[in-house]
């Protein structure tokens, strides 16, 4: 993963700061950086969102395509994840350099989001066994300064909220042949329920404490972190230990608790913001990167 190298003295400085609940940028241990969220930024997608968290910048575009359902779940649609670690984020990712990380990230996203508990996959089915919607969730990393997972999960949730899939009707003719008709009314569309979609909170163990939303520098001081996916109701849907170090059981429990608390608190303002953003409708000034 993209990383920075820092000196021993810097490490000590950061670790002492974390011990006293005062981080280099003035935050407390459980504070996120300033976050900017904007939806509907790329017009030729079915849903999109951009999240900026400090110097971490993520753009998510969702495209829906009609495909055959998977044979083992014929009455459900599914999600596909692709993470493009573009060279924009760091020159290391040039050519095929970002591929490995991209696969790693998309695998984890798949585990976190592609379950019928977080999204009603059945609503994506058009015609059991024959047609279903596949949501291609493409994540573009534009800049990375740590805490990719959290930023990606928020962007994905926002983009799913923003997604509008055209309504389709299945017409059956006399011989039993089926035809699919797309609704041409742009307002006649399917929205996704995002109430249960989890957000990821990554906790980074620095010294004896752990911090939320670690920057790359803080990450360099830590050997292990814990990824926790939390739903708005506070249920944990995914836990992963990341990094080369190990954790003692007690800190795992503590970190999951913190993750739960922080994650739960994250959802409400996020939904509020998304709803407010949408109610502005066309009046909302689209700034995109022009902000």
């Amino acid at each position: 993963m993209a990383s920075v190298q820092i000196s021993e003295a810097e490490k000590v400085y950061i670790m002492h700061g974390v011990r006293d609940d005062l981080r280099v940028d003035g935050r407390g241990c459980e504070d996120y950086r300033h976050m900017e969220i904007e939806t509907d930024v790329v017009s030729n997608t079915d849903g999109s969102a951009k999240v900026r968290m400090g110097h971490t910048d993520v753009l998510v575009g969702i495209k829906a395509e009609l495909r055959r359902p998977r044979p083992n779940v014929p009455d459900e649609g599914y999600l596909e994840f692709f993470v493009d670690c573009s060279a924009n984020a760091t020159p290391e990712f040039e050519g095929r350099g970002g591929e490995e990380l991209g696969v790693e990230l998309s695998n984890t996203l798949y585990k976190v989001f592609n379950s019928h508990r977080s999204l009603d996959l059945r609503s994506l089915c058009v015609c059991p066994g024959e047609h279903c919607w596949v949501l291609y969730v493409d994540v573009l990393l534009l800049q990375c300064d740590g805490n990719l997972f959290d930023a990606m999960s928020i962007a994905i949730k926002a983009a799913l909220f923003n997604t509008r899939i055209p309504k389709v009707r299945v017409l059956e003719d006399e011989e039993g042949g089926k035809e699919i008709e797309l609704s041409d009314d742009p307002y006649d569309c399917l929205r996704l329920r995002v109430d249960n979609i989890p957000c990821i909170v990554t906790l980074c163990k620095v010294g004896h404490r752990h911090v939320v939303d670690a920057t790359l520098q803080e990450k360099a001081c830590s050997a292990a972190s814990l990824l926790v996916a939390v739903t708005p109701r506070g249920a944990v849907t995914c836990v992963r230990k990341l990094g080369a170090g190990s954790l003692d059981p007690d800190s795992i429990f503590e970190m999951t608790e913190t993750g739960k608390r922080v994650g739960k608190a994250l959802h409400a303002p996020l939904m509020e913001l998304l709803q407010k953003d949408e109610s502005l409708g066309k009046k909302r000034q689209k700034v995109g990167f022009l902000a």
Partner: protein
Amino acid sequence: MPVDTKRVRGPEESQSPVLFLPPSTQSPAGRSGQGARGNADIRPVFTRCGLVSQAKGSSYLEAGNTKIICSVYGPREIERKDETDMKSGRLVCDFRLAPFSCRKRGAWIQGSEERDLSLALLESMQPGVCLHRYPRSQIEVNVMVLENDGSILAHAVTCASMALADAGIEMYDLVLGCSLRQDGDACLVDPDVLEEKGSWQSGYEENQGRVTLALLPNLGQVSGLQADGEMREDALPAAVRTCIDGCHKMYPVVQQAILRAVKKKAPPPEK
């Protein structure tokens, strides 16, 4: 699609006969197959070290029908010299499922599941190995699952740490793995394939999940943790504790296998 010219190719498309079973027989009854096993019991484990003559160290592990073989090569010169600091060694993990190891045939080319498992294995093993003792070199761990009957990642962790020990690689501690399946109120340790799937993927029931944990038993440190599924508030910590207990249950078996391998390599002086 690029054509794979380096292998003997079959027809473009073929389907597993499992897909054509009459619907009634498609999901054979749950847990009856294993006979009487308590929910908290691990399956009988058979382990052996030093089977692969060409490798520096190797091990074989059988838990129920799950069969895993692992070999360790190195330390040898680092292959990719571009990045990484040279002060500490590199651990390289390759996790593969043999094409015939699952109910559905797998492909030869490493899929994303295997890559994911390789990474999980690497992150679980890394904290246990004294990599700073092997500057400028890499240690390769190759794991092959011959038959997948559940809990492969957990057993692969155990198997890999035995192979590392057999290869004489310096370690802080062994790494043991254990996995668990939360199915409603039942908490099944060391699940087999049927238990792993269970009603979780088809149903919408409460408190379903899966936990895999890797433990350094003497240091009491958790080196790997993966939990998926929506579990009740108290179920997750309980599951972690149960897995830790499960790991400790494996410890004597693993110890014995390593001891045997050591004795074989350096027989104690006869009296």
